[in-house]
């Protein structure tokens, strides 16, 4: 039997936040929600309050200067989480700005304590705590450390989970006593780069539990604030050794034969080729084949709009029907300020909701462009995390990448992405008899033997149809074809 105290974790009601916090907020903790202006501190505080406050768990929101309460209430009402029915019942607002200006910190502290003793709130918010910090610097005022310690001890004694909200700069973290006393620090920031703004959340500390490290992306919409954990909580699927995993047929008969009967579960493939070579068509066939076998699929589109995608894909009506039937999810992820975390979360959420076994990411170039500039520098690392997360779920992933056609050199993938995938299928154009024809080959297939043949193929209304082997030539891929003497087989 353990004598350790069991610290309950409060669910915050903010999507993604509990995961980042390590399961929720420790009950009775004394927290600081900090960051620069416009980072979403008040919105986060309100969202936590409106999501968690109830008659049994009342909340007290104390405003001390900072954003005028009338304006705060006006703007916060615009978010879906704002529930006016809770105001005055389970949520009480208290303004102490005048108290601070007229009577100082001692009086503010007395008023807070009096209110807390009278109403026994389980959640207490003090916004903006910055005003308290400034006041404490005036001559003759109560020292900040004393104020914070007394507030912290009193609120903890009254079993309240507390949030101080305030604007701070990162350099203050070393010398401000609040940062020492606080049990938890939630740091919100926003970074602007080339017209794009990315919001971030960092759990600087959270006593008694292990928060997810790093900077997590945050998006604020009409629904409120949503956190996208940097490393989404993927439930790993126990997978058989590679050689024993089931093969997922591509729906392209000739292609399956080249790769030993299909693509293994929990495996990733990159299809590279020039514009119009049929990368999307091949991917779509793979998805449709899976659905026909009862395996739902997800297509993350970063370039074409879903409706265009539906139109462009072979078997138009059927693809739309598959979406309606819940066997296919199309994710349109084109905004140019996407974060990698958001993208991962969207795709993994769709995979988990649908029970998808197959995912197509079309295309990597579009994915990179859709990211906010600050994320592009870490694109390869992000892609590695994304593919790794999906593969661990047992999903088979196909990615496409456009490769500028070079007729004088052999390039297999865009720079630096080949190591991210288990297999690479290369598509190329080839001029023969006055016609531009298409050929493909399997460049690599980690852990498996595969055909090395160059196969001619066509794109028909039914999709890709693999043709004969292009035998009898050499140096085609470097643009200097020449006939090989001797018998040829196709």
């Amino acid at each position, binding site marked *: 039997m353990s004598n350790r105290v069991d610290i309950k974790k409060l669910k915050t009601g903010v999507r993604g936040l509990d995961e980042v916090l390590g399961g929720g907020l420790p009950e009775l903790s004394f927290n600081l929600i900090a960051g620069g202006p416009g980072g979403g501190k008040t919105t986060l505080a309100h969202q936590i309050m409106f999501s968690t406050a109830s008659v049994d768990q009342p909340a007290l929101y104390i*405003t001390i200067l900072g954003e*005028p*309460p*009338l304006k705060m*209430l006006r703007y916060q*009402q615009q978010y879906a989480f704002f529930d006016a029915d809770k105001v005055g019942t389970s949520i*009480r*607002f208290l*303004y102490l700005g*005048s108290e601070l200006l007229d009577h100082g910190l001692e009086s503010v502290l007395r008023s807070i304590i009096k209110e807390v003793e009278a109403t026994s709130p389980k959640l207490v918010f003090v916004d903006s705590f910055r005003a308290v910090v400034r006041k404490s610097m005036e001559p003759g005022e109560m020292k900040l450390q004393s104020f914070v310690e007394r507030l912290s001890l009193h609120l903890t004694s009254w079993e309240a989970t507390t949030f101080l909200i305030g604007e701070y700069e990162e350099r203050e973290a070393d010398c401000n006593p609040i940062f020492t006393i606080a049990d938890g620090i939630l740091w919100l920031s926003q970074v602007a780069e080339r017209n794009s703004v990315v919001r971030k959340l960092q759990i600087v500390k959270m006593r008694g539990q292990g928060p997810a490290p790093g900077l997590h992306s945050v998006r604020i919409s009409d629904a409120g604030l949503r956190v996208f954990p940097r490393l989404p909580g993927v439930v790993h699927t126990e997978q058989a050794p590679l050689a024993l995993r089931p093969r997922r047929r591509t729906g392209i008969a000739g292609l399956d034969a080249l790769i030993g009967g299909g693509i293994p579960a929990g495996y990733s493939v990159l299809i590279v080729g020039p514009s119009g070579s049929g990368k999307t068509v091949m991917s779509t066939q793979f998805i449709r084949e899976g659905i026909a076998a009862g395996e739902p699929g997800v297509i993350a589109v970063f370039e074409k709009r879903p409706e265009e995608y539906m139109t462009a894909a072979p078997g138009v009506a059927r693809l739309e029907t598959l979406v309606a039937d819940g066997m296919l999810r199309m994710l349109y992820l084109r905004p140019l300020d996407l974060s990698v975390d958001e993208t991962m979360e969207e795709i993994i959420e769709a995979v988990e909701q649908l029970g998808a076994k197959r995912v197509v990411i079309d295309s990597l170039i579009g994915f990179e462009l859709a990211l906010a500039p600050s994320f592009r520098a870490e694109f390869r690392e992000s892609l590695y995390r994304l593919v790794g997360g999906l593969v661990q779920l047992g999903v088979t992933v196909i990615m496409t990448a456009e490769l500028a056609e070079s007729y004088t050199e052999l390039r297999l993938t865009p720079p630096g992405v080949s190591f991210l995938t288990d297999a690479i299928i290369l598509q190329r154009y080839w001029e023969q008899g006055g016609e531009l024809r298409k050929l493909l080959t399997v460049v690599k297939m980690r852990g498996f033997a595969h055909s090395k043949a160059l196969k001619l193929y066509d794109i028909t209304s039914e999709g890709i149809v693999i043709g004969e082997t292009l035998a009898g030539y050499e140096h085609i891929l470097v643009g200097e074809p020449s006939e090989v003497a001797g018998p040829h087989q196709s």
Partner: protein
Amino acid sequence: MATGSAPRLADRASDLTDQLLRHLARLVGEIGITALFKRSMVLASGAFPFLADAPRPPDLTPVGALRAALAEQRIELAREVFLVVLSTFLALLGRLIGELLVRRMLHEAWPGAFHGDKEHE
């Protein structure tokens, strides 16, 4: 509202208003609430110029000014003016934070005034 003389009505009206403004100030701050009430007086003075015209001591609060103005009128007019000022103030507040919140705050400030009207909300 008690019937009788205008000064008595003025006293009662200012007490009620004080009670409301104090409660609202506790929730959302005195400065904003006082500014809103001042504005409602200014708007109401369009129809009732005496609200703005009469000379008042500079340190008189807006509620004090209303009380003084009402006390000098006939009781019927004083009642009408008070209702106009109050409804203007509540409308201004409602435009800022929404009618639902205003209604909730009124219930808290004047709990007796809404006794038994739950079913009419």
